[in-house]
Each structure stands twice: as C-alpha cells, then as structure tokens.
C-alpha cells in the first residue's frame, strides 16, 4: 500500500560509471539506464543482472519505452534518436534518426504508441512516426534549448518546456501552438556570472487531468557553484494559471524529474550539491511534506508501472530501487 513516508531502498545495483538517465519498461520487467561511459544498460528487475552495450557516439540524456514494451528509444547528445528492440540479449538498433542539430535532450512516446516527440538544443520540438521514423511535425516556438517534452495522457496535446521556463502546449493533430504557460520561476540569469540557468527539467500531468506540474530549480545564487534549490511549479490545467510554487526546505539541488503518484501526490527527484533526494508533495500545499535522502546524488528517476517502486540513476554508478511503502 502506497505510503511515501515509509519509502525505503530495496535494491542497489552497480554499473560502476556515473549514470545519467533511467526508464522502466511498461510491463515492469526491465529498467533501462544510460551512463557517462556512452553505454546503455538493461537491468532485469527479477535478477538485478544487466546487459550493457555501447549505443551512441555521445551520452544518452533520455530514454522512453513504447506502451507495449517491445521497443524503446534513446535520445543522445550526438543529435540522434535510436529505436531499440526490448528483446533478450544485446539489442541492435532498429532505426537511427538524425533528429536535431545538437543534443536531443528529451524524448516521450504518445499514449497510443504511434508517435514520439523530441526536444533539442536547436530550440525545436519534433513529432515522429514510430513506424516509419519520419518527421510528422516540426514545431518552432521556443527561443532556448528544449529541456523536456511530454504527451498529455489523452494524446491530444504535447507539452514542451525550455531553459527560459516557457512551457508550450501544442495540438498534436495540427501542430498548432495553443498556449504558453509561464514557469519563469525555474529560470534565472545571473548577471555576475553571465549565465542563463535552470529550465523546465520535467513535466507531469495529474491523474485527474486537472493539474500540470513542472520542476527544476530556483534560488540560484551561484549557478556555476551549484548553489540552488529544487522547485516544483503547479498550474491549473483548465485555465493555464499558475497555482503555486512548491519549494523544499533544506535541500540544495535540481529537481530533475517529476511524477504524479496514483494518490495524486507529487514525487520529485532532486540531485545536486546537497545529495540525492526523493521529495513528496501534495498538490494543494505550499511546501513539500516529506523527503528521503539517498546515498548519493542522482540525475534521473522513473516510476514503476505498479506505482510503488521508483528507480533512481546515481553519479556513483548505482541504480537504486526504492519502495514507496512500509512493506517489501
């Protein structure tokens, strides 16, 4: 039974080199991870054993599985997206796509599995056909690096967030830009260091479809020195109005990932100078209410299809699986 206050680590598996991204397959059989050694890993949840292979010419920033669990996508800093089979043994690429000019920072698959979306350093959002690998839509509207893309659970809309804190909502059928949500709380320009910093690191939609949450950082008094704190920004889906920001006291870092739990509560994963944390919040509250410090700082998090397990990818080269309950 879901009980965030009793969250605890149940598995710790070692890859050995710093990890970057992670994603469960929808059937809950595997965990996919990427690492700074340019490899991908597919971990069996049953055994904790991993198959490892070299995939891209650079780091893989994001991973996403198709709904049937048969294939998954990796988005690299080498401009490419690769489609892989989720079969036994070492996978061979099904299709390689030169997707963007510069990093492909984010990839997400449509709920029906026919499309996937990518966001890149070329300020573009693109929608692709899974079956053919061709571009269906090329969406211009961002003025900075696109950090996150997320299909609405209905499949009707696509959301994309960028470095400047802008979230754009697109109509998937037409490619039309419908509205812009202002998450500028997640961006800062430091005039002393002359750097833009922050961005919409991830986007999530509540189970009741009434709220949009995004995450990143704020209080960036020293961007180059990692002095900043994680922050969640919540919007009313219907009106697009910002409802509130939800800070976490006593944590230094970046909220890299955000997920709604089945209960409607919000889980963010923060990594940075303060270490790695799983942070829990309630949609109507001003601050998060619970946090669990993990052994090492983290860079990504994903929620298991059962809604009770969470995987985190850590700098110390470990995958950690935590259970959001007292049991197990």
């Amino acid at each position, binding site marked *: 039974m879901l009980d965030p206050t009793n969250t605890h680590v149940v598995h710790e598996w070692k890859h050995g*080199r*710093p990890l970057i991204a992670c994603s469960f397959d929808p059937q809950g059989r595997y965990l996919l991870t990427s690492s*700074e*050694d*340019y490899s991908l890993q597919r971990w069996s949840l049953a055994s904790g054993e991993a198959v490892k292979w070299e995939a891209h*010419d*650079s*780091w893989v920033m994001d991973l996403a599985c198709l709904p049937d669990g048969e294939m998954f996508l990796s988005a690299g*800093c*080498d401009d490419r997206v690769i489609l892989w089979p989720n079969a036994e043994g070492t996978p061979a690429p099904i299709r390689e796509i030169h997707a963007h000019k510069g*990093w492909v920072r984010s990839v997400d698959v449509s709920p029906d599995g026919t499309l996937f979306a990518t966001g890149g*350093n070329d300020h573009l959002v693109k929608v692709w056909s899974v079956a053919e690998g061709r571009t269906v839509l090329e969406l211009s509207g961002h003025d900075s*690096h696109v950090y996150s893309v997320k299909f609405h659970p209905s499949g009707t809309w696509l959301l994309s967030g960028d470095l400047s804190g802008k979230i754009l909502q697109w109509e998937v059928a037409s490619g039309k830009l419908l509205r812009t949500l202002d998450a500028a709380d997640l961006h800062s320009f430091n005039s*002393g*260091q*002359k*750097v*833009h*910093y922050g961005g919409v690191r991830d986007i999530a939609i509540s189970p009741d479809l009434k709220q949009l949450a995004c995450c990143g950082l704020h209080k960036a008094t020293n*961007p*180059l*020195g*990692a002095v900043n704190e994680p922050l969640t920004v919540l919007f009313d889906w219907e009106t697009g109005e910002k409802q509130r920001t939800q800070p976490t006291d006593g944590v230094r870092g970046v909220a890299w990932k955000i997920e709604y739990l089945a209960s409607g509560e919000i889980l963010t994963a923060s*990594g*940075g*100078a303060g270490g790695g944390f799983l942070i829990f919040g309630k949609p109507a509250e001003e601050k998060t209410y619970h946090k669990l410090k993990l052994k*090492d*700082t983290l*860079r990504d998090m994903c929620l298991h299809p059962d809604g009770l397990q969470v995987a985190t990818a850590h*700098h*110390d080269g470990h995958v950690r699986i935590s259970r959001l309950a007292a049991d197990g």
Partner: protein
Amino acid sequence: MKCDYACQSVDHQMARRDFLGTLAGGFVVGGLGALTSPLAAAHLKREQMRVLVVFMSGGLSQLESWDPKPKTDTGGPFRAIPTAVPGMHISELLPQTALHMDKLALIRSINTRNGDHSKGRHQMERGRNQMPGQDFPHLGAVVAKSLERSDNPLPGHIRVPGGGRGSDAAYLGPRYNSIGVNGQPPANSARAGSLSEQADQARNDFRRRLNDRFMQQRRTAETDVYLQSYEQALQLMERRDVFDVEKEPAKEHERYGDSEFGKHCLMSRRLLEHGIPFVQVSHSNYDTHNENFNFHLEQLGEFDRGFSALIGDLHERGMLESTLVVVMSEFGRTPRINARFGRDHWGNAWSVCVGGARIQPGAIIGKTNENGTAVVDREVNHGDLFHTYLSAVGLDSSDSFDIGGRSQPLADPAHVPIHELLS
C-alpha cells in the same frame, strides 16, 4: 632592442618622421607598401605589432575546446570536429573557429601546477608565480611600453570590458596601467556643452603653465601620475570615437553576434585598427563546477561567433601578421567530471590557442595522454608562454627594461620561448 622609447633616440625620431610624412599621422593597415625605405618599413612593421588577449575568465575547459577527448572516461558528451588543419580536431562547440584554425595554433601541454584563480591569472598575465612582496607588470603593460608609438595619442593597454584605471603596470609606471572600456567612449570624455573649444584650450594651456612651473621645483612620482592622467584624458577626448562601437554598421554587429562579447570583439578590432598595441577582452564565465556542459555550450556559442568573426576580419584586413592573438585562462578544468556534471580547477594539463604575428599557423605544440589527465610531450608553463608571446611580436624576450638605472627583465629569465612555434 630599445625598450625605452621615451629616450628620443635618433632611429626612433627618423622612423617617426618618415611615418608622419607618409601617412599624415593616421594609422593605415597594410601601409607598408607605400614606403620606399626598407629601414623605415622594417621599423614601422615593428611599430605596428599588436597583441590581443581573449581571457576566458574562470577557467575554460580544454576538453570542451582545444583538446577534446571524445569517448573516453573524461570526454563528456561533446564530440570532436575536424578543422581547416588536416588532423587537427577541436570541440564541436567551436564550429566557426574550426574554419580558422589554419591561421591559429594550439599549445596542448601546459602545466602551471596551480588551481587557484588569483594565482593562475597572475601566472598567465605576468608570466611568473605570485610572490609576496613582488610585483610584476601585466603582459599588457610590457607590450604597451615595448610597442608604443609616440605618434599615437591613444593609451596602449586596454581592458574590455571594464572601467577606470588598473594598477597592473608595476615598475613600468602608471602610464602603462590598463584602462577599462565598455564599448562606449570613456565616461565624461566629451567636452562639457557649456564650455567652448577656445575656453577649454585656454584652460588647459593655463594648467600646463602652472604644472611646468611646479614641476621644475617639486617633481615627484605623484605629480607625474597627476600630469599623465590629465594629458591622457585630453588625448582620449580628442579620439573618443575610436571607443564607440556604435560607429560600426549594423551588419558588422550582426556578424559578431548579439552578445556583449560580440560587441567587445568588434570593439577590440576597432582598437587594434587604431594602433593600440594591447587589448584584452574578457569573456565570462567558465568556472563551471556545476553543469559544465550546459554552461560551455552557452558560453562557447557566444565566443565562437565573436572570435571567429574577429579572426576572419584580422586576416582579411592584413592585420593578423602583425597581431598576436592569445586565448587564455587562469587554468583548465579537471578531466574528472564531478557529481554535478561539473569540472573543477585544473592546471596540470591544459591548453591555449594562439595565432598571428610570428606564430606558425596550424601548429600543435605538445600532447596530453589519451584521457587528458597528464602532459606526455613538450611540457610548457606560464613562463615559457610569456616569453613566446613577446617573441611572437618581435621583441627579444631576454631583454630588459632600464627602470631608473635598474635592469628589469621583460620576462622571467628562468624560461625561454617555445622556439618551434615561432616562424
């Protein structure tokens, strides 16, 4: 080489007469062909030598710039790209600079044994280690004193961006301290509207008469500074447009990029064209302990556009052969990538980019190992680099200044230039 050009030596006066007679006191790039006297031409060529330093404040990562190590445990996410020099690869973050590498050179084997910002800046700008109680002049002051032209009223040592007067000339005296400018004419450099030109002239003549009388009886270093400041201010007022980057057409601003750094590069071209011997442009900030890759992506995008436009212009205008260009930092960054996707301070194996003047175009000096953790060939340090810079603009780096009867070496006598880098 005579460093004390204030000595009014015969050869200096001769060249100045030739120069003024031929060019009417103006600075003309590529004007050597107009001179028939080889002696005067040689002298003028030396007088035209200039230095541009681009200081990458905070510590540029050599792995994201001049010495990439893709697909190694230290390499990070960026790839290496080919350049205009066969076999030379630099980071993909510098695509426009890559096209100009046949005009530039790389030194990839620097070991300054230091990871402190202040000490590193001192090493790189002065060619010596910071020592308590010792003060050495900035490269800009050494160059300004060595290459100044008495017919050019502009200051010889400029910082962009910045304000006010630096205190970086040490024993060379306040005349060679840097002046900071920001892309506009220096503040308060226009004659007040309420003051006519004649009244201003009369006022300055009166001030000079009083100064001369006072100086005959009570001259001190302080009064020299006072006098120098006034005279330099007057000269600046007369040439204030040189500092006004807005005088450049819009298409030039576009080429250099819509950033402060782009504007500063354009301004530095303007200053070098007007015969200022030393210009240092700073670009901030590379002290990327956190999110090194995002910040280098952001910063080097600005750098690549402005710097490549500047190198292209210096080359096309025939100025590169008389302008030494140095891209330096206080140190490099650690091969090890930390937990926050950052790189930390690292002085043990890093790079600078140089070009122009007597630098061999397309050269690569030294080498680091496979993952950039150590120098494996032709280790050099800040002392060697300082000698090399001076040699590249035709100075004898083993020479000395005569400062009040005391000999002060231009560069640390314990080091020598990187001879194989010089043509």
